[in-house]
């Protein structure tokens, strides 16, 4: 069995972990930087080429599509799906997860509880919402990641100042209800129909975002039935057999994000679970069930 691992040019911890584990499960494993791939097609055939080699001849693909290659990654996966190559995520999940509001739409339509969120192309429309909303609120860039592009506003005035500043990014900004929590969240790693690993992330002092990339600390966490159910439903709503689902704990739980390109370092260090191996085994299962 041959596995093609697609990822960013620079292989970081997660890519290296996946490569290492994949080599124990698949006979051949090759890493392909997404940026160097070329699609070729006509009415008869489709190819995804790397230096002339067609990666659609591989038995399975394991894509790691960062935000910086969302559009091309989406295209690649559409082509791979058309050729019935087993992949653990749908092309739409790349689209949805890189656009935070699309993620929320998909989750809302699957009745997964999420904070109330508003988006408009016109700032004046959003400012009307700011008149009546309860503060504090969260303002987010549509295409942020790793906690970047997330800001908190305690009043209408500060929300407007933040929107002024975020205009520099030339991206739409959306407004989200703030769910009170002690600066922590739960990251649940879903593979197939199973919650394989879970950690609680705590924000560093003075910070509200609990992302590891923003300085948060992770510790092993035993998910309850409700959290398990939420994580599985969220992953399913986005067409993902491998997903990292972020949940706000509390009396009422909310899913705030689903990640298609999650880091493995934090979750593996916190839980001691070989998540990379489980991902690879899932892909192998998909490849052998074809």
């Amino acid at each position, binding site marked *: 069995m041959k596995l093609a691992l697609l990822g960013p040019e620079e292989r970081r911890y997660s890519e290296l972990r996946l490569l290492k584990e994949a080599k124990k499960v698949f006979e051949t494993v090759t890493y392909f930087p*997404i*940026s*160097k*791939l*070329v*699609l*070729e*097609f*006509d*009415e008869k055939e*489709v190819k995804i*080429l790397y*230096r*002339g080699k067609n990666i659609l001849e591989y038995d399975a693909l394991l894509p790691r599509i960062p935000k*910086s*290659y*969302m*559009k*091309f990654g*989406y*295209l690649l996966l*559409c*082509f791979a799906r*058309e050729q019935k190559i087993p992949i653990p995520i749908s092309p*739409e999940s790349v*689209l949805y997860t890189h*656009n935070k*509001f*699309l993620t*929320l*739409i*998909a*989750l*809302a*339509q699957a*009745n*997964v*509880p*999420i*904070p*109330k*969120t*508003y*988006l*408009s*192309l*016109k700032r004046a*429309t*959003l400012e009307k*919402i700011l008149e009546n909303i309860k503060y504090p609120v969260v303002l987010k860039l549509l295409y942020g990641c790793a906690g970047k592009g997330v800001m908190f506003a305690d009043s209408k005035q500060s929300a407007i100042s933040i929107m002024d500043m975020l205009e520099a990014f030339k991206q*739409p900004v959306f407004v989200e209800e703030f769910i009170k929590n002690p600066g922590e969240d739960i990251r649940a790693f879903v593979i197939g129909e199973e919650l394989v690993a879970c950690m609680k992330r705590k924000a560093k002092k003075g910070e509200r975002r609990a992302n590891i990339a923003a300085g948060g600390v992770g510790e092993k966490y035993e998910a309850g039935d409700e959290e398990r159910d939420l994580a599985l439903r969220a992953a399913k709503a986005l067409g993902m057999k491998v997903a990292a689902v972020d949940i706000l704990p509390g009396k009422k739980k*909310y899913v705030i994000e689903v990640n298609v390109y999650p880091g493995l370092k934090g979750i593996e260090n916190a839980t001691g679970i070989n998540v990379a191996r489980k991902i690879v085994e899932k892909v192998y299962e998909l490849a052998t069930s074809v």
Partner: protein
Amino acid sequence: MKVGIIYFSKRGREEAERICNAVKEEGEECFPIDAKTILLYAGEDDAAAFSQENGLRSFDSLVFLPEEEYFEFAYMIIKIVYDYTVTSIPCEKFRLFFNRALIQRFLASHKLSVRKVYAFSEATAANFVLKELKLPVILQFPDGRRIPIKSEDTFTELISGIKRDTVITAEKPLKPEFLVWTLVIGDEVIACEKKGESISPFNTPSEIIEKSLKVSSLLSTFFCQVNFIPYRNSFLVNEVRLFPDFALFEKITGKNVYKILASSIISKAKERKKEMIKRSISQSINGIKRWLLEIGIIGPRREKI
């Protein structure tokens, strides 16, 4: 019937107003809707879209005049309303327009002939494409620009400036003497024009009619513009536009394009609304059957009794 025409630009507003006037003349309600005034909401109960405090799901039909810069926002609206309101294009088909390579491949897979196309997103990959295709090539950018390239220096200069994740397609250029533009509304090719130095009516070959109707049917769209390029005694589909140049077609053909469009929108919307209701009833019946089965009112247990 309540119809909304969603537009994204000044040109879109003008077209939306003309279409609305034509729909009103047919005796139905119609409102032009500026996409920039639309508020999207997602919450634990559901997702919704509003324009001036009117829920977009309250419309019987929503017609989109999408523009490339706002495709993603348009997609979000369609995704929210799609199960409740008849839209001028289905959700999953609209996604094809995010990328030229996708729509071209979709057409090719349905035997609508397409020449060899390459797609890439970075300079290093572009060099491979150049080796395969060899100069001259024609590059198409996401904003629709098509640039013929004859020299390697020009190619290198152009590609080196591209932003990451800009998906570019490359093909061998054809040098047609003319292009053919068709306007499909509903199940009819309303206009077929030859575009050379000027635009003029064209005696439409049956191949073009069949291919235009096939494109529109495959995309399940209320209307579209299909552009063809003559190639080796045949015509290749070169481009599909979801927002045709209605005003231009009206001017060239002398036909009342907006009246035809209005009638077609109303008729398509009514037809699809019926299908949605049937589907909804069928789902409700299945849901009720499942519930009755679960509580034992129907099913093997009852039969035993």
